[in-house]
């Protein structure tokens, strides 16, 4: 199976499995090796990278919510130069393509970043992240500069602004649209008692973004693929995005709660699961059980439970 997740043309990216980790989820590819099988995913998307180093945000970073949470990291990273130096060997050894997530700060930054990125063979494509505060004009200038890249360019749109930005971004040369970055929200941090802002994650985000995907699929040119992202927590969630018109999906925070879920969604949509029969290869369809298999070892049998 080869699925083109970017616009056909001079630069195009095909993946074997239409399931990717969202930027910020898996780090730079070296962290989750022991918890999931990256080869079951379509590509690795890296953590967000900026041209110059960024510091972590101060204050509350994680606030639990009902069936979700708020996260504000400030996108700390050591800057593009150092990231490339540190990880390009790791990336070369991966069996799947690497998509670098580049934070879209300004047009001049983008020109410089793209020149550097073109030199790195281990990077197959770039995903551009746009700020929530960015106007249509800003966005176009940033995309235009990033278009200097000689690799496929995916553009990830902010949640609230995506209806406005999608068509202009496609016209400006985005090879794929990622809908959307996690929505921003404000919550009361219970520890400090202060209102604090960040991104909101949880299953309830999915209905809103799924609708945006359905609507935008009917509005933007058919040759620009849409990649759905937001609130995916099960293979069925991922399939819903595909049905709504996405060519592939990105899974974000669910990976932290259930790392194997990302792999399981990859196996499912990548056609890796051949059977779902009971007593079929355990590793294939209960991949999350790892090596423990406590279930078999010690669970009270069904019958015992029934006779209580």
């Amino acid at each position, binding site marked *: 199976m080869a699925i083109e997740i970017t616009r056909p043309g001079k630069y195009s990216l095909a993946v074997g499995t239409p399931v990717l980790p969202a930027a910020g*989820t898996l*780090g730079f590819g070296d962290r989750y090796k022991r918890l999931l099988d990256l080869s079951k995913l379509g590509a690795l998307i890296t953590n967000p990278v900026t041209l110059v180093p960024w510091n972590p945000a101060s204050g509350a970073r994680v606030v639990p919510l009902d069936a979700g949470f708020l996260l504000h*990291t400030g996108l700390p990273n050591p800057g593009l130069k150092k990231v490339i130096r540190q990880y390009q060997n790791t990336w070369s050894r991966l069996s799947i393509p690497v998509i670098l997530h580049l934070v879209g700060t300004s047009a001049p930054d983008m020109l410089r970043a793209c020149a550097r990125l073109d030199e790195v063979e281990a990077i197959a494509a770039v995903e551009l992240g746009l700020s929530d505060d960015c106007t249509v004009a800003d966005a176009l200038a940033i995309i235009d500069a990033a278009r200097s890249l000689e690799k496929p360019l995916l553009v990830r749109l902010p949640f609230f602004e995506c209806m406005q930005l999608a068509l202009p971004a496609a016209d400006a040369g985005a090879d794929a649209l990622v809908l959307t970055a996690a929505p921003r929200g404000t919550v009361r941090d219970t520890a*400090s008692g202060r209102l604090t802002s960040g991104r909101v994650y*949880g*299953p309830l985000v999915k209905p809103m973004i799924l609708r945006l995907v359905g609507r935008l699929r009917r509005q933007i040119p058919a040759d620009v693929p849409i990649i759905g992202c937001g609130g995916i927590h099960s293979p069925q969630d991922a399939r819903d995005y595909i049905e709504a018109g996405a060519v592939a999906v990105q899974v974000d925070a669910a990976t932290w709660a259930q790392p194997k879920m990302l792999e399981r969604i990859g196996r499912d949509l990548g056609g890796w699961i051949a059977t779902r029969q009971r007593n079929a290869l355990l590793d294939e369809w*209960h991949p999350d059980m790892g090596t423990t*298999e406590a*279930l078999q070892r010690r*669970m009270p049998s069904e019958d015992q439970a029934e006779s209580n």
Partner: protein
Amino acid sequence: MKETQAYIERIRRVNREYQRLDLAVDDSLANIQAGQALLVRRIEKDYEAEVWDPYLRELWFPVEAQARSILVVEQRARQPFLPGQLLSIIGPVGSPIRLRQKLRNILLIAHDSSPAALLFMLSPLLARDVSITLVLMGAARQYEASHLPEALELIRAEDNLGWNDMVMTLGWADQIFVLGTPGEELASFAKILRLVRSRRTVLPPRFIYGMLQRQLPCGLGACHACMVNTRQGHKLQCVDGPAFDLTTLRLE
């Protein structure tokens, strides 16, 4: 670092406020050490049919190891657990704390926090005849400690964070580990550090540590939500921590 399953083997109420859970865990957790923790999620038989509230894994510090594959954790008694409950565990998370070789007197401080994250080292240290002082400060003064080993010297601080013999306790200590106010850990560490500095002018490296207990989204260095600033650059609680030398951690 692995994802494995465990189940709750036994539940004991240890006093009015706390219960201890014996977890039957995977062998890969047999060598967990003081400072390391588990990222825990309750699961049902069908892993997919999950409840998403709470969403993130909880950070559980073991307080004791029993048999090779039994880890004990301490939880509020009002938390409803049942024996047989299945858990999904990512761990061990973090690096072991670094105790001095020639440790004779250790000072443990819990400020507004349950001391649970400090308890795993008690048995090994008592076995080595190290004298242990546990100071409970602020809200932690309410912690019911009747179930802790008797050999432990227990001090409940006064309102102002001081206590009788504070100067002596601080003078004798070879090493200090501090737990801070949840959500305000750095501010809390800064307070304790000021207190210690006011009694000991020179703080050698690897003498006083703060142990972070923030909720960790990923627990393995991917999300960067747990980053802290140190004089040696950015560090991650989940990889380099949870214990950081308070003289190098940037506390502002």
